[in-house]
């Protein structure tokens, strides 16, 4: 292997970010392979301050490759493209702009730019490695000639945290009132389609149980979408039925996962869908709309919907919460799927990809 170092370039390294954690795994893997590896960022959270360098401090080194963690538009992409080192792109997907056009035109434009940047890198990158087959197909569409898929590296032990007692207690009291607790974790964002979950809740309450509750955890990517969602919830008289928890700590999130009866994702675009793994880890049965990379992430560990009409989603939720055998099957399938995506396996997969690409030389 002629490479002596593979340094990563990532626009943002912040806490609880699946891509940031993946980058740290890549770094430890590269070091395990006997290579030097540093992370260069445009933005870093205080908790990672000692583990990353600002990109303008980067000085080239002989025998080094650069690897770009691509998930958003960033000026780092242009900087990366102009560097003389041999390049790799690790693609996590950039949300297609049409989801944001109605809500955040400026963000949509950034997404257009982001996708253009990824496409432009096809001309300079030696290889594109995607975290899902769905993403790899996009890389091929962008014009990448050499591509592969290696799943997102998720350290499941990070999910094994103690539940926040206050949140757990509150959720327990909610549960005692009856009705199922439905959970979705992800940023409040048009592509995640939380509004469809609210519609499904309306249908469920009308058809099956008026005590059902929906918990939405995660910060917001779009203020206007969140505002519309809140008004929609108020307009449907669901203040007592929908809990928009916002950003939560790992302990609070663990409480939400452990206090729910079913995890439902109606997201229309996921490059991988890391929270689905957290649901599996916590023994939650999953119902998911079969969009983008979701089917390959869940494998057979979710009831996959091809139609998300509120009545259909409501009936699916009812079936899962009222059919213990189906629930047990889903939970068991989730455990098997987690084993398939275990960190040791995903690291081995990424290691094989990196070894092959680096072996071929610059």
């Amino acid at each position: 292997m002629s490479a002596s170092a593979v340094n990563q370039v990532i626009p943002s390294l912040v806490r609880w970010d699946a891509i940031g954690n993946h980058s740290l795994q890549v770094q430890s893997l590269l070091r395990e392979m006997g290579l030097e590896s540093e992370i260069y960022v445009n933005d870093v959270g205080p908790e990672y301050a000692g583990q990353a360098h600002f990109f303008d401090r980067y000085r080239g080194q002989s025998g080094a490759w650069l690897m770009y963690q691509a998930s958003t538009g960033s000026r780092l992409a242009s900087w990366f493209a102009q560097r003389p080192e041999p390049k790799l792109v690790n693609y996590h997907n950039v949300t297609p702009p049409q989801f944001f056009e109605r809500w955040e035109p400026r963000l949509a434009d950034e997404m257009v730019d982001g996708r253009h940047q990824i496409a432009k890198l096809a001309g300079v990158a030696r290889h594109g490695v995607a975290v899902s087959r769905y993403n790899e197909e996009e890389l091929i569409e962008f014009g990448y000639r050499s591509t592969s898929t290696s799943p997102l590296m998720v350290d499941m032990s990070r999910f094994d945290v103690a539940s926040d007692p206050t949140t757990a207690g509150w959720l327990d009291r909610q549960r005692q009132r009856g009705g199922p607790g439905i959970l979705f974790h992800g940023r409040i964002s048009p592509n995640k389609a939380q509004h469809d979950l609210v519609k499904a809740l309306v249908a469920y309450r009308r058809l099956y149980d008026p005590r059902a509750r929906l918990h939405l955890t995660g910060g917001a990517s779009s203020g206007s979408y969140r505002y519309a969602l809140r008004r929609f919830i108020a307009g449907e008289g669901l203040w007592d039925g929908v809990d928009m928890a916002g950003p939560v700590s790992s302990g609070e999130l663990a409480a939400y996962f452990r206090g729910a009866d079913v995890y439902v994702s109606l997201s229309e675009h996921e490059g991988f869908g890391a929270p689905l793994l957290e649901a599996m880890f916590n023994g939650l049965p999953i119902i998911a709309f079969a969009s983008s990379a979701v089917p390959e992430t869940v494998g057979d560990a979710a009831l996959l919907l091809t139609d998300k009409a509120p009545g259909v989603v409501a009936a699916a939720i009812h079936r899962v919460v009222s059919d213990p055998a189906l629930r047990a099957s889903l939970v068991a399938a989730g455990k098997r799927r987690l084993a398939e995506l275990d960190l040791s396996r995903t690291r081995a997969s990424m290691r094989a990809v990196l070894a092959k690409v680096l072996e071929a030389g610059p």
Partner: protein
Amino acid sequence: MSEATGAGFDNERVMAEIRDEVARRRAAGDFPPSLERELDLAFDRYVPAGSVSSDFTEAVKAADRAAYINVAVPTESEKPGVGEVKRVLRKAMAWYLNYLAQQTTAFATASVRAMRSLGERLEMVEEQLAELAPARDDAADRPAVAPDLGRWVGLCTERLPSRGRVLHAECGSGALLRSLVDAGVDAYGVEPRGPLVDAAAAGGLEAWPDDPVEHLSAVAEGYLAGLVLSGCVDRLALPRQRRLIELAAAKLAPGAPLILIATHPAAWATAVPPLEVDLAPGRPLHPTTWAHLLGASRFTDVAVEDGGDTSALTARRSG
């Protein structure tokens, strides 16, 4: 109830049972399609206006992009120390530049908002003009030979899936709709003319008094497993016909079939003098024109079946 097995479960079978349950609850009136539509409408009320795609919209978006003045000047430099100097200068001048940038951004944003508002009003006027176009009266402007939809029953039942909701718009008094339901298709209809929809509903069919374009606007994206269009495709003015096709592309699930039954222009022309035919805004389109419109709107496998007075176009929503 499912059986718990180590080998998992049959997603297809469970979903089929769920769809049966939904069909049963819908038929019982527990959760009518109108409620789902109301939910869509309720949320759509909060969607920001001004999101249609057109050159004007693109221009406004470009202006909106440019309206924001970013004072975070790039400070990186290849030369040692220069980046630090730039950062110090940027920080020192921030109070001054921010003051100017805020005023400029406020002015530009207000201008863009005014442009958007103007665009929305213009769009409204265009829609009203399209509505005001001398649409043909139902009774007087029907083709000399009434479209015989019966001849297309076989085609429809062959192409439409037995799973998922299928819409027939406009369904008239429900003759074709009845055939579809009898053939096991989960079909419902919309029809704007009250007496006809009443007749369909009286026959036990799920038919709603609604305008096809309005109805499709309210349906969730990708919701329909199939769509049959007839009547409206002859009657509407061209902008609304195009809108109808756009909506069909948006509301059909990927791979779902569209069947469009249109009066052949030649059949219509037999009852109307040539001059009126040429000038009439609601003149039926030639099947080739429909095929072109469908091909340009995310439909594939477009084929034309000639039935004399009427033509049926079959197409599939691209995956």
